[in-house]
Structure formats: structure tokens, C-alpha cells
């Protein structure tokens, strides 16, 4: 087996550990403290935000326009509408401002 294969296999095991690990730790406790539960409820917003926020550092006019439109559409539309509107604005704006 090649080194590449072993890298892939070890990477897969490491990744699976992250995907199952949080559950294995939490499930050892019989009851979940309200503060821990509040923390778990904050996970989606907390993690997903970190995947967006640093992008703002190098966002230009096209990127800002796309994000603003995404927020505007989110007030009314669903996820698909939001994404398509944001992507359309981005691609259109990049034809002009690069």
C-alpha cells in the first residue's frame, strides 16, 4: 500500500473520531445541565459563523453585494432562494469589478 493510501486512511479515521467523539463524551452523562444544553443549542450559529466571518477580511465589492443580497433574501425566502440570489449577484458583479 502506498503512503498516499495510508494518509487517506488515517485522515478518514481522524475525521470519523471528530464526528462521533462529541456524542461519545456527552452520552456518558445521564442528565445534561441547562447551561450545557444552552451551549449545544448555540453550536450551529457559533460554528457556521466562523466559516463566514474571516472571509469578510478579503471581501471586495462583489462579495459584499452578494452577502447583503443573501441577508435581504433571508428575510423572506428559504435557503435555496437565498443561496441562488447571493450566487447570482456574486457572479454578475465579478464580471464588472473582478
Amino acid at each position, binding site marked *: 500500500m502506498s503512503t498516499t493510501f495510508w494518509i487517506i486512511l488515517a*485522515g478518514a479515521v481522524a475525521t470519523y473520531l471528530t464526528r462521533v467523539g462529541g456524542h461519545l463524551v456527552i452520552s456518558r452523562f445521564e442528565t445534561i445541565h441547562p447551561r450545557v444544553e444552552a451551549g449545544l443549542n448555540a453550536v450551529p450559529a457559533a460554528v457556521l459563523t*466562523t466559516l463566514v466571518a474571516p472571509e469578510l477580511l478579503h471581501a471586495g465589492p462583489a462579495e459584499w453585494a452578494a452577502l447583503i443580497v443573501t441577508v435581504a433574501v433571508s428575510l423572506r425566502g428559504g435557503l435555496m432562494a437565498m443561496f441562488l440570489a447571493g*450566487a447570482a449577484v456574486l457572479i454578475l458583479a465579478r464580471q464588472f469589478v473582478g
Partner: protein
Amino acid sequence: MAAEAISEGRTGGDFWDGVRLSMPVVVASAPFAVLFGTIAVDNGFSVLEAFLMSAMIYGGASQMVGIELFGQHVAPWLIVLSIFAVNFRHVLYSAGIGRRIAHWPVVQQALGYFILTDPQFAIAEARAESGRPVGFVWYLGLGLPVYVFWVIESGLGAVFGKMIPDTHALGIDFLLPIYFLGLVLGFRKRPLWAPVVAASAVASIIAYRTVGSPWHVSIGAIAGVLLAVMLPPHHSGVGKRP
């Protein structure tokens, strides 16, 4: 018999409900799957290895980082550690989603955790929040198309990647932030949403500037979660949950 037919019909309906929700994810991730395949071959992977990496790791950002380091001839253990670091946020997803799927048989849970990606977690959480059950069939309907397309498109990228035109003009590098922003906004009715988003945004930007990527993700996430833990419970609304 009638009841059986109804429950079977509902199970099929659950599966297709999941498939319908998976479509934006399939669209948003497609360019990255193709791009990953292309970059993988560029950095010395075979088509089969690119395909295997997508099938076994199934985590876009970590695959990109892994392949980049591989191309720079970084030591194998460091590549694996970097993949682990990029994927570390899944520990939080796993802890959160465990509450929703603990009633599944163990084998189904084991499979469920394997396909626990960012959108899989976010969409399943949103469903649980709306009071509907997160069943295995629905979860599989959501996750299976994303997985199948991801693996196939990685292979296609590896084989045909050189044919991609100007990726910048197509906005490919910025599609995922738009998609993730959409997911963040989808949770805006949750208690503490605004302070958590603000804390995670500031902490991740500071960490990005100081500690660097990919640790800004874990550091930013922990800042938001800690804030929710520290604020008095009557703000977080957990006491009101049934």
C-alpha cells in the same frame, strides 16, 4: 394493513423530504468536488486516490488542506493532524446532534455520524428545532445524494479537471461562504443567536489574524458556545423547552 401502507408511504415521503432539502447542498458543493478532484491530480494523487479520499474522509475543506500539504511534501503525520484540526468542529456537531438521534439503532447511528457534515448538521438541527422527529430515513435522504454526488464529482474533476474555465469569474471560491451565511441566518430565531454570532465572528477573525487557519474555526466556535453557557439560563430559553 392500511396502517402499514400509511406508515410505509410516510417513510418514503420522509426520504424524499430529505432528498428535496439536499438539493441546495448538492448544487453548492458540486464546484468544490470537481475542484478538489482537479487539485488532487495536480498535486500528485491518482484518480483512484482522489476518489478514495472523497469517499472515506468526506469533508471538503479538510480534503483541500490535506491535498495542498501533500503537494508541498509535508510529513504524512502532519497532513493527518491538519485534517484532524480542520475537522475538529465536528466534535461540537456530534455532541449537539447526539441528542436528536440517540434513539436510532447503533449501526444507523454509526452511519449517521459518518455523513455528519456542516449542512447535514445544520439542516437536521433546524428540523429538530421545528419539533419534527429526526428519523434515520429522512436523515439518509438528506445525506445520501450529497455523498454520492460528492464522490462522483470528485472523480470527474480528477479525470476532466483541466477543462474548468476561469473559476474566479464563476465565483466558485465564494459560493460556500454565501451558503454558510444562509445556514447561519436560518437559525436567527434561536435564543441568544445575535450575541453568539457576534462572539464567534469577532473571536474567529482575531484568531484567524493571530493563531491562523484552521484553528480560527474551533476558537471562534468555542467562544460562541462559551458565551451561551455563561449567560444566565433564562436568556438561553432552555428552561422553557418541553
